[in-house]
């Protein structure tokens, strides 16, 4: 399947940032980007420079932080709808954000190393990965809501809000 895969870290990040404020989003973007780069950054080519005259350049350590930040901004843009209970749209945006992330990463490699090369299989790989990630996002949202309920955190999703208001209303009625 064109080497497509589920991107657990970006998925977790995207689903989490839509449920938190701007400051926690920044912190999450930094942590996730840092972890991603710590896991994947490669060292220099090495060897005799007179033989290896044109080593492949690497993207700077920390570039993922910026990409995660942009993805976080995209997700936060849809937060008002999410808070109104339209989580489906956020799930779709998760796919788009993943697509943007993978595409940007690939284009960055092209820019840094030169020789623009974009075969069809890369496009398939990117959009299939984005689709897989998008399909899995409702599960992540479900887990997040369960965790929020467990730790008494308010996501301000209408589903939870309604119950809260209903509880308040009942209390008011009882007092009256």
């Amino acid at each position: 399947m064109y080497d497509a895969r589920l991107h657990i870290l970006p998925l977790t990040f995207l689903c989490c940032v839509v449920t938190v404020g701007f400051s926690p989003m920044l912190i999450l973007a930094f942590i996730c980007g840092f972890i991603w780069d710590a896991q994947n950054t490669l060292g220099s080519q090495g060897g005799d420079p007179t033989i290896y005259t044109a080593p492949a350049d690497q993207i700077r350590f920390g570039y993922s932080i910026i990409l995660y930040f942009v993805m976080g901004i995209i997700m936060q843009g849809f937060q008002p709808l999410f808070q109104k209970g339209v989580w489906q749209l956020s799930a779709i945006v998760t796919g788009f954000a993943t697509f943007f992330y993978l595409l940007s990463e690939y284009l960055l490699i092209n820019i840094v190393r030169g020789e623009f090369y974009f075969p069809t299989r890369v496009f398939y790989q990117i959009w299939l990965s984005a689709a897989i990630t998008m399909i899995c996002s409702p599960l992540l949202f479900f887990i997040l809501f369960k965790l929020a309920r467990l730790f008494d955190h308010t996501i301000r999703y209408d589903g939870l809000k309604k119950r809260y208001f209903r509880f308040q209303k009942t209390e008011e009625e009882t007092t009256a």
Partner: protein
Amino acid sequence: MKPLNLVTLLVFLAATAWTLTRSETSVRQIQKGYYSFISPFVASGSAMETKIRAFDEEVEHSETLSKKLKIAETELVKLSTEIEHLKKLEKENVQLRAALDFKERTPFSVKAAKVIRRKPSNWWETAHIDRGSNHGISPMLAVIAAEGLVGKVDRPEDETSTVILLTDEACQVSARVVGTHEFGILSGQRAQNGDNPMLRLRYLSRDSNVKIGQKVITTGKGELFEKGIALGTIVDITRGALYTEAQVKPAVNFADLETVFVLIK
């Protein structure tokens, strides 16, 4: 913007700038810390994967297995004979070298390792092996399989190491076409991460006489790889204005990589 958000944004920007300006040495230190933290999880994940694979293999049809066994037995007899023959040749070679007073090649030992994780990232062709600095592995060491060159060690941790595979664009090897005096630089290609990745042999001379089907081996130049390790076979040739470029099919089957050997200098 709320004051708290503004402060967080400033701190975020400062932290990002700090991260982007790290030197390679500090990046390596960060990665070392990160991998020593996650290595127990990677090891347990790998153990689980091995169990699943073993179960999968058991499910394989018994008839196919018995056929394979018969073939393997025949191969074993054949190989034993070949080994005996090679031992004789080795002895003869040693005697001849001594007689001609040749300098001995740099001695190196081989450390067997198991591939525990394949391609954890999207665009980088890497693998993790279960041998690290505790086993004498250091950066830039050549990693080989029975068929030929696999890649080189990029980052050794205590118990595991990251190997950058030959199919990655960043793994360059000084190569020679067998039967000619043609030298070039062999490397992986961008986005060639399917089941049949092709390698790219660049900087061959414009009027080179390389042909499809010729073997490509390491030259030993460039301080990274030993001389004479098999790299692949030429499958296509493109003649350019300045250089000739060839597509090379790797000698190693990267889709089925399980055991590798690290050449320790």
